[in-house]
């Protein structure tokens, strides 16, 4: 147990160091403040949960809020934990060291999962946590259900985490052998994620016969059974919070059983998947020795793109953040939750500019590639600093790399959308202008975050691109811009959509010039002094 605790402690400290790194004494309070930034996300989460609560309350089943949030939360956690588990297990730099320590395989597996658990618990707190608190406190305070709910919250990450682990570890040992391993890992996991989402969507669409449905609804917990049939533990959890001991035993028992299953298989899983994966490097041989000169800028951009492509976690993360929204959209479309006709209807026509702009601008809004462009280089960051190129160019090519990736993604999204929504040329042009101007702004200003917080010493790639404060700061920036933008929109309410979008594009151009001044004027010095 001692070994487990100290191993876990190291993993957890490593996890948190990505948030606290660089918060030195000088701006200690700012640092603490910044640590609490993620908590701001509780407001939109609360808003959402309250709305759900009110609709279930109107039906007379407020407890369904918990059921519903628990199901959504579990799906989200499975999806989020897959890349994370891959990162800590297969691409973590400490693995070689840990493998040499005299500790049991299950100890290693569980201590590695500790950081995944914390991450999932944070997510769970926003969704299930708010649901539990709202259900337990609104109306009359129900202390026992609040306490049971919090216990449920604490164990809620276990099911998705262990299921994801049990799926992913053997899966990786299948796709992780042979040549082009990294490519296989990315493609394989994207397909897996897609499959999980589709399955989820399909399971919610299972049609019940009307008589059957009526029968179920007539029962005491009818609606709960209908909502929870996708995932029975959600029924147990709901009843447990309502005070049922039997269901509590079922729910907690399931978690215990899963932990035991993982513990039993840990040895096999660890030695088969992990050791095999770590032994075979993804090296490419062959080709010719060539001597060819290329443009410096192209070489630099190629380097930065290569850094993303060569690391499956970076690549998956980039592709997911950019295409996830559209992926969801398409899946929803195919499973029929939104009718195709609705999108083609003329009612929506005035909003086409907004919809189209929003879709093609997702890469710039959701992705914050520039905020991690230095971090992704990690310990190899020194390489470009000793070369005879100026700091300005060095920064510039990083921004260009982000721009290229995002604009290509926007282009792909645009082409896909044109097939779904019948937009006209004017819409396309206006949206394109908006997309380019906003992408220019976000791609340049984001790098300031990374220059402020370079984080070159990461031990697993998720820490470099997702699990760190830079990403949250980038999101906060978007939130602020969004809120101000919304305020402006309210002011000029009634203007034609295209005009509104062009006004915003103009504002983004101004912001872009300001960001250029900030990046090259104020942050070049700081870039030069980033210590490895």
């Amino acid at each position, binding site marked *: 147990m001692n070994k487990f605790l100290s191993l876990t402690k190291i993993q957890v400290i490593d996890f948190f160091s990505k948030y606290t790194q660089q918060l030195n004494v000088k701006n200690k309070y700012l640092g603490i403040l910044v640590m609490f930034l993620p908590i701001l996300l509780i407001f939109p989460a609360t808003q959402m949960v309250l709305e759900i609560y009110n609709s279930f309350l109107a039906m007379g089943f407020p407890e369904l809020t918990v059921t519903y949030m628990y199901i959504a939360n579990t799906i989200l956690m499975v999806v989020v934990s897959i890349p994370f588990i891959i990162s800590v297990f297969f691409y973590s730099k400490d693995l070689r060291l840990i493998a040499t320590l005299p500790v049991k395989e299950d100890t290693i597996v569980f201590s590695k999962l500790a950081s995944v658990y914390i991450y999932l618990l944070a997510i769970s707190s926003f969704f299930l946590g708010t649901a539990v608190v709202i259900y337990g406190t609104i109306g009359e305070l129900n202390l026992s259900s609040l306490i049971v709910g919090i216990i449920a919250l604490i164990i809620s990450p276990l099911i998705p985490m262990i299921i994801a682990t049990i799926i992913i570890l053997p899966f990786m040992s299948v796709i992780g052998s042979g040549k082009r391993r990294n490519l296989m890992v990315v493609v394989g996991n994207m397909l897996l994620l897609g499959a999980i989402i589709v399955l989820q969507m399909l399971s919610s669409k299972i049609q019940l016969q009307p008589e059957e449905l009526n029968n179920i609804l007539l029962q005491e917990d009818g609606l709960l059974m209908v909502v929870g049939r996708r995932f029975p533990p959600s029924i147990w959890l709901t009843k447990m919070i309502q005070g049922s001991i039997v269901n509590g035993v079922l729910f907690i028992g399931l978690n215990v059983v899963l932990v035991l299953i993982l513990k039993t298989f840990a040895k096999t899983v660890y030695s088969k998947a992990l050791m095999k994966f770590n032994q075979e490097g993804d090296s*490419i041989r062959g080709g010719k020795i060539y001597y060819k*000169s290329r443009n410096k800028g192209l070489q630099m951009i190629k380097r930065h793109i290569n850094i993303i492509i060569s690391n499956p976690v970076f690549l998956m993360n980039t592709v997911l953040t950019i295409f996830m929204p559209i992926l969801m959209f398409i899946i929803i479309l195919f499973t029929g939750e939104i009718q195709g006709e609705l999108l083609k209807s003329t009612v929506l026509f005035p909003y086409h500019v907004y919809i189209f702009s929003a879709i093609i601008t997702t890469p710039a809004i959701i992705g914050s590639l520039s905020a991690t462009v230095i971090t992704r280089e990690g310990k190899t960051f020194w390489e470009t600093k000793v070369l005879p190129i100026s700091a300005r160019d060095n920064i510039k090519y990083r921004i260009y790399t982000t721009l290229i990736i995002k604009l290509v993604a926007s282009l792909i999204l645009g082409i896909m959308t044109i097939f779904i929504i019948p937009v006209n040329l004017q819409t396309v042009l206006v949206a394109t202008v908006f997309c380019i101007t906003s992408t220019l702004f976000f791609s340049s200003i984001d790098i300031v975050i990374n220059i402020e917080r370079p984080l070159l010493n990461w031990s697993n790639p998720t820490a470099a691109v997702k699990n760190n404060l830079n990403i949250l700061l980038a999101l906060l920036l978007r939130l602020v811009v969004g809120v101000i933008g919304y305020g402006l929109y309210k002011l000029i309410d009634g203007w034609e959509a295209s005009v509104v979008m062009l006004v915003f594009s103009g504002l983004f151009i101004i912001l872009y010039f300001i960001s250029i001044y900030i990046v090259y004027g104020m942050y070049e010095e700081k870039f030069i002094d980033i*210590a490895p």
Partner: protein
Amino acid sequence: MLILKNVSKIYGNNKKAVDQLTLQIEKGEIIGFIGPNGAGKTTTIRMITGIIALTEGIIEINGKNITKEPVEAKKNFTFVPDHPTIFDAIKGIDYLNFIGDMHEVTIQHRKDRIEKYTKAFQIYDSLTQTINSYSHGMKQKLLISGALLPDPNLFILDEPMVGLDPHSAKILKDIMREHCEKGGTVFFSSHVLEVVENLCDRVAIIHRGKLIACDTPKNIKKNSSATLEEIFLEMTKDE
């Protein structure tokens, strides 16, 4: 060729790693920069190469100030760090071409020099493999080959002998000698004293961020019957 004037470095945690260091290196010299672990060798080299900024002082390489004219200054040197951590998902030959492009080496030069050095280090046949399949020593040899590719005026190496087998270390020493005979300058750090003693024209000893001696190995030993090692240990003794 290389001038350091009152150079200091204070890290973010208020750690003074280099303290008022002054040093002048002439063209054609091989200088060994020695000192115990944590003396400030790597920090000094990082400032010379522009990896980190100086807290105070001036560094000039071939008359170009590294702070004021970084690009011009950087055209005059190449650098091999103490750890061969480079982006390794590309092939060895891609790396060398990348360095060649950055230093604007012509194709003919590139071919001649890459063949010369990688064959000497016996990594030529591995150039078509990705660098992540190389051993530590192979990576180091690749970095050294890359650094020699532009035929730099000043060749800077941080602890170059660590991790090289005796055979490769010998080749590197010969290359360093040859580089100087052709008018180049070599500046390298080390804690291996024999290497320094036999190879260097002059030795600079750094201790706790301060330069405590800078002379030919012979002069340092002159008034003493002790070996260089004994003198070094005496000089850098902790009170």
